[in-house]
């Protein structure tokens, strides 16, 4: 009996059970159970986290991976769909990370949303989202992955539109759904191709059978799915708009877990991409473009949550670049470390926003280092981890990625863009810290600002520990799957750090300009490009619907109603027949001459034609 696999599998099933129980509790008609749901949910997630540490340690100790087939769901003669769970490196490591982050966020939510009348429902939604995410991560077949995929998409919609009385929130939720849907087309394309050509949706069979096929089409579908879900360039506007949702939603979904689902899909199916240089180059260039574009947009934003959102988008682009380098392990590493510091950045932002009476504009913050010392310190730690400060969490993943990029023989333009984006990361991070915590306060002294509530401080503390140590812990315990290139010229080795420091210095210089008037008028063109997000939403969100509506009007009104149904249809019959009718009846003039003439001419004509 293999005890280790048994313990592994049963602990993971226990996690599912623990997470599902509160949901089932809400289905009971007894209202008493729903009152303390926030406690119940947080406790469930905390318990699930500790349970998930058991498989993690078993895996770290023995390297055990397991695949569980639970139930034969739909089995036909030619095609099987089962419920199968894959507990490999990626899911075993990701689940504790996700649960830890979720635990912290849920504790924070009980403070952030404590005034909300529907708080129980909020917790329920977050829990359902978490279950869907875990289903996605542990899926061993494409069908189950698709279930998780759609689940997180729907929950994202519901949670972004939480304050549905606000029109912007509804628009943002709809935007999220539409952009995700476009990506879903890619996923469904890939699934259909696999079902037709490889006759299975189970990953093991996919990997073994795919070597003989040309996989460009399904891989393009998967890249499209990742573009939609992970907000790569082209389908990226939904992520900054998703900041309309409450801060816990932004922290959980749109920084740590949901948006990495697309990257996770590519990581899971990376064996398919090994031999396809086209797809790898696509990922590389798409990721590079995303990272530099969103970092550019982040430079001039004034809403603190939007800056963090663009930062998320930029890091997602970096993950895509890593996939393009054929280094899925590094991308996964970055997912895990990024979850910690990004969630912490969001929680700090949430704490700041709530303390300032829901003020989100950084131009109206300032001096919070004196008033919220712990929060602003954690903000600084998170920003440092984000920029890849040596030996914080982000350094281990980000530096490894940039080293791999520098030593590869791939697209140099992607390299340049990525380094530029790294510099921009430092710039906007410093901008946030400068505007928020340094200087003098620029807000009205209305509400009492304090850090006394442990419900908000403990999560941030936990995530701060994670932001500092997670990178070290993960890299120390799990060896990389692909051999990294260790020797390189000194400048290449120091490239990431150099670029970050250059960015930092530039940002400091720019920050010092805020108190001087260097020029009479600022340079507005580039500022407008960056501030208006490259004009991408302005153009696409208006052009596409307008074109479609005009086309619809042309088809429905002009083509069908006016042309087919009037001019060429029924009215044409009437209008074509009227002249014939009037000429036939006007032939009668009442004179005998007409009759005889017609007789005469008909006679002559027929004789000439038929006889002669």
């Amino acid at each position, binding site marked *: 009996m293999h005890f280790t696999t048994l313990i592994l599998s049963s602990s993971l099933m226990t996690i599912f059970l623990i997470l599902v129980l509160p949901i089932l509790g809400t289905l009971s008609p007894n209202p008493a159970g729903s009152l303390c749901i926030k406690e119940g949910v947080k406790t469930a997630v905390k318990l699930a986290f500790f349970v998930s540490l058991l498989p993690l340690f078993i895996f770290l100790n023995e390297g055990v991976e397991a695949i569980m087939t639970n139930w034969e769901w739909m089995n036909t003669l030619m095609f099987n769909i089962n419920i199968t769970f894959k507990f490999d490196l990626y899911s075993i490591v990701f689940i504790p990370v996700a649960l830890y982050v979720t635990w912290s966020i849920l504790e924070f939510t009980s403070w952030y949303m404590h005034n909300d009348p529907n708080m129980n429902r909020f917790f329920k939604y977050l829990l359902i989202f978490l279950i869907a995410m875990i289903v996605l991560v542990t899926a061993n077949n494409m069908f189950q992955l698709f279930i998780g995929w759609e689940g997180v998409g729907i929950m994202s919609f519901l949670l972004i539109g939480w304050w549905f009385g606000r029109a912007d929130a509804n628009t943002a939720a709809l935007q999220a759904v539409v952009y995700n849907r476009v990506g879903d087309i890619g996923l469904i394309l890939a699934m259909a191709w696999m079902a037709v050509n490889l006759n299975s949706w189970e990953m093991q069979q996919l990997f073994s059978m795919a070597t003989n096929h040309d996989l460009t089409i399904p891989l393009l579908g998967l890249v499209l799915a990742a573009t939609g879900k992970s907000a790569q360039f082209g389908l990226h506007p939904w992520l900054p708009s998703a900041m309309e949702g409450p801060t816990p939603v932004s922290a959980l979904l749109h920084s740590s877990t949901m948006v990495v689902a697309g990257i996770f899909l590519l990581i899971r199916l990376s064996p398919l991409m090994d031999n396809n240089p086209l797809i790898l180059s696509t990922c590389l260039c798409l990721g590079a473009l995303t990272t530099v574009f969103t970092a550019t947009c982040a430079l001039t934003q004034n809403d603190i949550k939007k800056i963090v959102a663009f930062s998320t988008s930029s890091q997602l682009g970096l993950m895509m670049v890593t996939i393009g380098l054929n280094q899925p392990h590094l991308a996964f590493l970055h997912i895990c470390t990024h979850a910690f510091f990004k969630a912490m950045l969001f929680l700090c932002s949430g704490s700041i926003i709530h303390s300032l009476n829901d003020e989100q504009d950084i131009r109206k913050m300032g001096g919070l280092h004196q008033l919220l010392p712990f929060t602003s310190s954690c903000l600084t730690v998170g920003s440092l981890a984000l920029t890849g400060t040596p030996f914080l969490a982000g350094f281990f993943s980000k530096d490894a990625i940039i080293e791999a990029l520098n030593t590869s023989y791939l697209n140099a333009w992607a390299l340049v863009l990525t380094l530029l984006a790294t510099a921009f990361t430092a710039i906007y991070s410093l901008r946030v810290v400068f505007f928020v915590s340094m200087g003098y306060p620029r807000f009205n002294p209305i509400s009492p600002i304090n850090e006394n509530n442990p419900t908000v401080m403990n999560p941030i503390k936990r995530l701060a520990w994670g932001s500092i140590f997670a990178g070290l812990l993960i890299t120390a315990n799990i060896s990389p799957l692909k051999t990294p290139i260790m020797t390189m010229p000194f400048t290449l080795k120091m490239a990431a750090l150099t670029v970050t420091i250059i960015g930092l210095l530039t940002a400091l210089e720019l920050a010092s300009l805020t108190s001087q008037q260097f020029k009479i008028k600022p340079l507005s063109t580039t500022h407008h490009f960056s501030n208006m997000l490259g004009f991408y939403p302005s153009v696409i969100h208006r052009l596409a619907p307008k074109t479609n509506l005009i086309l619809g009007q042309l088809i429905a009104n002009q083509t069908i109603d006016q042309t087919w149904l009037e001019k060429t249809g029924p009215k044409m019959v009437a209008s074509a027949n009227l002249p014939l009718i009037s000429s036939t009846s006007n032939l009668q003039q009442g004179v*005998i001459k007409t009759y005889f003439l017609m*007789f005469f001419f008909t006679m002559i004509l*027929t004789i000439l034609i038929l*006889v002669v």
Partner: protein
Amino acid sequence: MNPYVLSILLMGLGLGTTVTFASSHWLLAWMGLEMNTLAILPLMAQHHHPRAVEAATKYFLIQSAAAATILFASSTNAWLSGQWDIQHITHPLPTVMITIALSLKLGLAPLHAWLPEVVQGLDLTTGLVLSTWQKLAPFALLLQISPEIPLLITSLGLISMLAGGWGGLNHTQLRKVLAYSSVAHLGWMMVVMQFSTSLTALALLMYVIMTTSAFLTFKLLKSTDMNSLAMSWAKTPSVTALAPMMLLSLGGLPPLSGFLPKWLIIQELTKQELGLVATVAALSALLSLFFYLRVCYCLTFTSSPNNLAGVAPWRLESKQISLPLATSTSLSILLLPISPAILSLTLPLF
């Protein structure tokens, strides 16, 4: 009219057609035709109304021109082939001339122009005789000679159908509408003549029945234009109920008996690989159907509780014998289920 004169004229009318039916010599046939013309002229002009006299004059001129052409053509045939037999016209020239002349007599397009004017000038009874009885004798001749010139026959038929359809759409006078309807029906008869003479006879028979019913209906209702049809529901509700059926039967709508000749003709045309002709024929039937429908509309859609179209008329007792109207209306509505029996009436004819 003086009953003696009337009986002589009617006997002359009957004798003329019978003589033409029984003849195998061209001169005898011509004689029958002339007797018909001469007998009906006093009938037309009996009311001494200027319009009636004008109609009679026009009719006389047209029919005599046609008869003279027939005489000329048969003489030409006698000169070319040496015999006066009706069924043995061999040379195309007399064939063409006789066909055109008989078309003028019948009122086939493009020689139909006189028919609406003449029928308009007559009272409904004489119009009935003109439209039904006077068509029999020339048709007998046409069926016997069976001209072998497909282009001529088909084009005469098609042009008649189309002219009858388009022409009738612009009129409100019922007699003119019925004249154009007869042009259209004659077109249907012509089109199939070269393939199946029995179908032509069937079409002629059905046409006679339906037109009789139409004329008798309008005579009962004493209406000669569509406006006066509007109050017919007050005069005779039962006729108002049945007359639309009869009119739609004229239009060739199943399941009424007017559908029978049209159906069989289209079937015959399709069998003879003349799909386009069949299609044009069917589409032109739509044209005439529209003006029949318009008459039906005036009859029925103006009944109460719609707004009254006119003052309620005097409902006087009608002295008209109802048997012919009843018989012809029922025949024109109900004959479709026994179509094999009807077809067998004309099948052994030729």
